[in-house]
């Protein structure tokens, strides 16, 4: 009976998590941002031609906008695009899938960690549940942001490692090394986190490795070998360097420079060393790092609009007491587990702290599921602490109601308000613009919105205004432009900072090329000379999201 209940509970939590990740997938948020479109088109290009938008055959690093995207997400996206076509649903499908599967691995990992304790199962179930309803994880599972796949690999890898340690089976360690290394091919943040965390895992399992020294060497070699492919690829490391906060040197060191000059001028030379750039960098790093524990960021505001639901933070406010209790009791009752999880917890923000725009919920996603495990452990203590049966039941009901309140609030804000409040942050309107242009070209007029207005086709150019950023990739994506043809014409290698074209579609600073009858598509109204406003681009609800002008 108990076993059946356990299975039912497991399935119920799993489906709740799956529902939250798959419901209206591709519709909430209601448009793809440029990175998502880029993942999608590159995957489509791989599917059709085996090459990326630049014509590189099966690359391990996708140049995309010059940010050299990691390969796992692109390849993971090939099958969904094959099955469901090139659309928002299929582009986001891998994350929803791996995000949902992560729920299972949170259970397995926590269960393995607390093995042999009487409360192993309850902590595992609660962690799994809190993870399944986590606003932070749901946010990224429903969009094509590669961090979710990275976290998935880490969860699987760590679980395999712990499992192998318990069962004393060799192949688990090989599989663990594979998945742990794979995470680095999924997301940049893991490149720093995973190698450092593996050191902690090895120390955790030191007794086992002392008995099996050969195995340790093989595990280490495998891990290094699997990681070497990206390590030796200078392009990926260059991307890492370009976003480091030290790249904003001028801004960062402006005031310290003045201060050190003041000290030298006033004869207090000794103090000038404290306005040194190394100290400023250390301070900036610490500021970024500690920012990851800022309750305001975690529970109330979040960071970028694309990283949280409108008016909701990354974690539930009600979790605060349980997280604190969990941290306290884990540290005093389960010292070894606390050290391992604490190590994970303290390492997780490091990658994000080295770069500009910190804290960033996506780069810090690897802090999950520690928050949830702490919360679960704290929750167990609540149940344990209250002895009187009636009081226990009453307080549990009360807490459950508060959780329910925040959960419903979150679901409401995310599913109903993301599309209205944050549409512009998801580059809403780009799709409509491309489709409007497509309609113009197909029938010679954009009949749905501007009946009777005829455009000459064939000879006329279509220029996307510069206020559509990276418009070319949206154009390729939404016209389902044939990748083979695109690559044959030079692919994305032809992109310049000035003006370039894909067939009759022009991008960048091309205004001087326009002549009579050409079409200009823009997000904002313009009073450019020689342009006559022709029609508004509207979305399904009739809102104006762009404008079509005609050169006269």
């Amino acid at each position: 009976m108990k076993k059946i209940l356990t299975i039912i509970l497991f399935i119920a939590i799993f489906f709740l998590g799956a529902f939250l990740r798959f419901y209206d997938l591709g519709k909430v948020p209601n448009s793809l941002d440029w990175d998502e479109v880029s993942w999608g088109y590159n995957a489509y290009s791989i599917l059709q031609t085996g090459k990326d938008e630049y014509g590189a055959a099966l690359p391990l690093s996708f140049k995309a906008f010059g940010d050299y995207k990691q390969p796992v997400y692109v390849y993971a996206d090939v099958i969904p695009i094959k099955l469901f076509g090139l659309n928002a649903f299929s582009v986001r499908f891998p994350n929803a899938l791996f995000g949902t599967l992560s729920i299972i691995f949170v259970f397995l990992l926590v269960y393995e960690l607390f093995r042999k304790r009487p409360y192993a199962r309850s902590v595992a179930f609660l962690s799994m549940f809190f993870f399944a309803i986590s606003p932070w994880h749901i946010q990224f599972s429903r969009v094509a942001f590669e961090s979710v796949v990275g976290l998935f690999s880490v969860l699987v890898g760590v679980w395999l490692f712990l499992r192998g340690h318990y069962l004393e089976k060799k192949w688990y360690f090989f599989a663990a090394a594979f998945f742990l290394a794979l995470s680095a091919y999924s997301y940049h943040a893991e490149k720093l986190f995973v190698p450092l965390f593996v050191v902690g895992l090895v120390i955790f399992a030191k007794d086992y490795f002392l008995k099996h020294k050969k195995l340790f060497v093989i595990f280490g070699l495998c891990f290094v070998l699997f990681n070497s492919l990206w390590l030796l690829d200078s392009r990926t490391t260059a991307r890492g360097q370009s976003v480091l906060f030290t790249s904003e040197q001028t801004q960062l060191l402006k005031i310290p420079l003045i201060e050190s000059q003041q000290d030298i001028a006033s004869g207090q030379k000794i103090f000038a060393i404290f306005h040194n750039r190394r100290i400023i960098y250390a301070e900036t790093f610490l500021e970024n790092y500690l920012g990851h524990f800022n309750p305001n960021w975690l529970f109330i505001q979040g960071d970028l609009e694309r990283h949280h639901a409108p008016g909701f933070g990354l974690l539930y406010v009600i979790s605060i007491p349980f997280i604190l209790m969990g941290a306290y009791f884990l540290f005093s009752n389960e010292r070894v587990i606390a050290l391992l999880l604490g190590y994970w917890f303290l390492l997780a923000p490091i990658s994000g702290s080295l770069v500009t725009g910190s804290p960033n919920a996506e780069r810090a996603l690897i802090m999950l599921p520690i928050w949830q495990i702490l919360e679960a452990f704290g929750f167990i203590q609540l149940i344990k602490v209250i002895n009187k049966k009636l009081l226990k039941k009453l307080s549990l009901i009360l807490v459950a109601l508060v959780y329910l309140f925040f959960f419903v609030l979150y679901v409401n804000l995310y599913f109903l308000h993301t599309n209205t409040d944050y549409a512009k942050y998801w580059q809403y309107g780009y799709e409509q613009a491309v489709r409007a242009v497509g309609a113009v070209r197909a029938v010679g007029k954009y009949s749905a919105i501007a009946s009777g207005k005829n455009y000459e086709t064939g000879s006329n150019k279509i220029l996307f205004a510069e206020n559509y950023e990276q418009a070319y990739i949206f154009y390729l994506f939404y016209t389902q432009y044939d990748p083979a043809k695109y690559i044959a014409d030079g692919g994305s290698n032809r992109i310049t900072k000035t003006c370039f074209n894909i067939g009759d579609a022009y991008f960048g600073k091309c205004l001087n090329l326009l002549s009579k009858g050409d079409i200009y598509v823009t997000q904002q109204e313009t009073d450019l000379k020689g342009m006559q406003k022709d029609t508004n681009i509207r979305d399904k609800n009739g809102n104006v999201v762009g404008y079509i002008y005609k050169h006269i």
Partner: protein
Amino acid sequence: MQDSGELYLWELPLLLFGAYMLIKYKKRESAFIIAWFLLAPIAAATARETPHALRSETYIPTYEIIAAFGALGVITFLGKFKPLYRKLCYIFFGVIVLVTVVVAAHNYFAHFPIQYSGDWQYGYKQAVLYAKAEENKYDIVAFTQEYGRPYIYVLFYGNVSPQVYWEKGVVTRDQFGFYNVLSIGKYQFRNSLVQPSDTGKRVLYVGAPDQIPNSLRIIKTINFLNDKPAFVIATN
């Protein structure tokens, strides 16, 4: 101080450890300190502009008490070490504390007044004294509202007697219940500095740098201590 927090960085581990100790200690005193710590920000949380270091000053001793608890814990913990290591730890920690305190004091005394003179309304005194010395030459002294509540500086540095202020001050009240002084005698406090009604009159303008149109003749510029312009004094 804008480039450092309200507490020393080395207090952070002590605070965490102290909080842990305090909870573990489970005495009435712990509950007292924790309650104090949690209740202190309530008043400030209901106000605008939070967190605000001044309004949560009632906090301050709780942080120090908790950190002291942590330090006590660390000292107890170090008791297990050999005397030599213990001494080395004390020296190491002592040096960190000494250096950070000295650096914080240096920053406070040497750089804070210069870098943030604007946040302490530097320039008002100089501007008011100048206007006072020259006021007889003009019909109107137009003072900018850009830096907030100029009238009180005019009253203070201008040594205007309360009697005169009561007689000549023109005052309104805004939606939040704050008083807004529009003028005192020939001193007028303006949001938009230059007004059409000024034509034909001799006006001394005391404005922020971006408020002075090219048509005016600039007489004097008063800078903040970091050399950025604070007030530009001009006439028509």
